[in-house]
């Protein structure tokens, strides 16, 4: 306003309505990733402290208590908050223990595929030419493969289990990192400071570590959070098909598969693991979006 006075051009002052105090919680939710924080916080606590949180042994079968509905519906009791399955096992406890698989798989696969993809992308983008052509054909090949179909094939060759799930998922997620990082590196490698490093005689290892990696880190972080939901759904799908995590280990996808047969009489057996998968995947996506907006200086609001 003072600048308009100096210029002598009096413009009508636009009064901005004072922000409504009633909308304060909504603004807070929009500015900070509250929903992802709550969901992911809960999942991580579940995974670390499963034995403390689970009210019952997730493997103990009490056939007399089988197919009990959740506490709030008719015939349910507080003894089994989310009901029991066809073998009388407590669903809530199984959800709590199932989070361990989810967290383990997410951590292992996202780290491994981000690392592989970033390295491949940097090699392709920085060296170009034949290296680029070969690596990017591998990426194209990988992206063209129908992931689930090929995953099913692979897991029938290998034997099912956690290691198997991680290998398959990494195989099908590294390529998107490679593509993105390559594109970023193509622009970074022409920056003057990279040329200067080359003029000073820096080798490719030094340029990768000191100049390219810090430049792609933000992008990789955002993609990694977005990949979290892809990984969760992939793991659940494999386990649902009986090709991933096998009983007695509890996994949400396997719970879904077991509950399918009782869907008509016990809706909670598919709904509850389904909701768990859905909300964790959604939280991953929302967090990724928030992170992207926050790390992108062009979108950063002047607070």
């Amino acid at each position, binding site marked *: 306003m003072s600048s308009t006075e100096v210029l002598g051009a009096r413009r009508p002052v636009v009064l901005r309505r004072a922000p409504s105090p009633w909308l304060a919680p909504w603004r807070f939710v929009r500015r900070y990733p509250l929903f992802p924080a709550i969901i992911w916080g809960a999942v991580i606590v579940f995974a670390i402290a499963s034995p403390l949180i689970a009210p019952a042994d997730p493997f103990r079968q009490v056939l007399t208590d089988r197919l009990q509905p959740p506490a709030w519906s008719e015939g349910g009791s507080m003894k089994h908050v989310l009901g029991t399955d066809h073998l009388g096992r407590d669903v809530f406890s199984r959800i709590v223990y199932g989070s361990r698989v989810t967290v383990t798989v997410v951590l292992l696969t996202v780290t491994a595929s981000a690392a592989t993809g970033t390295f491949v992308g940097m090699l392709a983008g920085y060296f170009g030419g034949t290296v680029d052509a070969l690596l990017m054909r591998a990426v194209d090949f990988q992206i063209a493969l129908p992931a689930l179909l090929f995953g099913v094939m692979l897991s029938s060759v290998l034997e099912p289990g956690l290691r198997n799930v991680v290998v398959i998922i990494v195989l099908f997620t590294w390529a998107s990192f490679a593509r993105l990082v390559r594109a970023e590196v193509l622009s970074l490698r022409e920056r003057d400071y990279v040329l200067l490093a080359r003029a*000073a005689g820096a080798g490719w290892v030094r340029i990768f570590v000191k100049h390219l990696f810090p430049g792609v880190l933000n992008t990789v972080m955002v993609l990694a959070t977005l990949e979290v939901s892809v990984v969760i759904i992939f793991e659940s799908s494999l386990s649902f098909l009986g090709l991933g995590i096998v009983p007695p280990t509890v996994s949400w996808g396997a719970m879904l598969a077991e509950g399918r047969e009782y869907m008509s009489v016990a809706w909670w057996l598919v709904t509850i693991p389904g909701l768990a998968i859905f909300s964790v995947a959604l939280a991953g996506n929302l967090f990724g979006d928030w992170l992207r907006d926050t790390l992108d200086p062009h979108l950063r609001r002047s607070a």
Partner: protein
Amino acid sequence: MVASTRRGDAPPAVAPRRGDVILRIRGLKKHFQAHGIAALGRRRPPIRAVDGVSFDIHRGENFGLVGESGSGKTTIAKLVLRLDTPTEGEIRFEDADVHALSGRALNAFRKATHVVFQDPNSSLSPRMRVRDIVGEPLAVQGVRGKALADRVAEVLSLVGLNPQAAERYPHEFSGGQRQRIAVARAIVAEPQLIVLDEPVSALDVSIRAQILNLLRDLQDRLHLTYLTIAHDLAVVYQACDRIGVMYLGRLVELAPSEELYRDPAHPYAKILLSAIPKPDPKLRHAERLPLTGEIPSPAAPPPGCRFHPRCPIAVERCSVDEPEWRELRSGHWVACHLA
């Protein structure tokens, strides 16, 4: 614009300073070929960014290259620094073919040459501390720890910065200070040849003189050789001992700067010189020669003399015969039929 000059306080340097040849460029060509979608169907003619350039740089001199954008100056800089490979021709540094070096000899070459780019915003990595930016050429050579920190502090004070600047990030400095950081980085490994690619054109006019003076002081103190690249003839004239004028990938004239200024032979050089504002009021009304048209595409250079479509004095022969690169007087070369 630039305050005191070397020419102001010393007799005009008609002959280049005595010194052996440190950099020899012969028949240098760099053609860029379009690949991929752009080249589908028919084979496009290559972009002739640099198309047959030869000159020598003597130890201890400041050699200037001027020309419009698109004339190939920066490509020459990249080729000299071995950041790109020439299509044809040879660059010899200290009598060794730069593009044939490997191993230890290549390492020595990297140490002996460095560069200052135009824009300090893009030449200083935003994510590194000044200490790491300035120290990088030494760190590459394996210098670590206190030796590295001491040398960084030393060069920072040499370029007029507080050694405490080492702990800060580039964005905490002003444009002129950032260019000082870039200069500090260029001299840290005690090079012999520094390429200055538009060293002051991104800077505020009031800062330019400071940086040019700094560069000249450093040249005298550290016995450096400069290859200065600029589009602004005023800057090059003030700073350089000899000047090469480039047009469309070729040298059109090469002379000691005093002689080029006094008696340019090529019409293109005449036009460029007439555009420099004159400090002498008597000369203020000297005629300013117009330069019409745009620089032609380096993919399809005009036949004959490349400058003939824009040349005010072109005759028929100019559009047919390519002018020879000949020595007009001792040390004064030109490529023009009419000079």
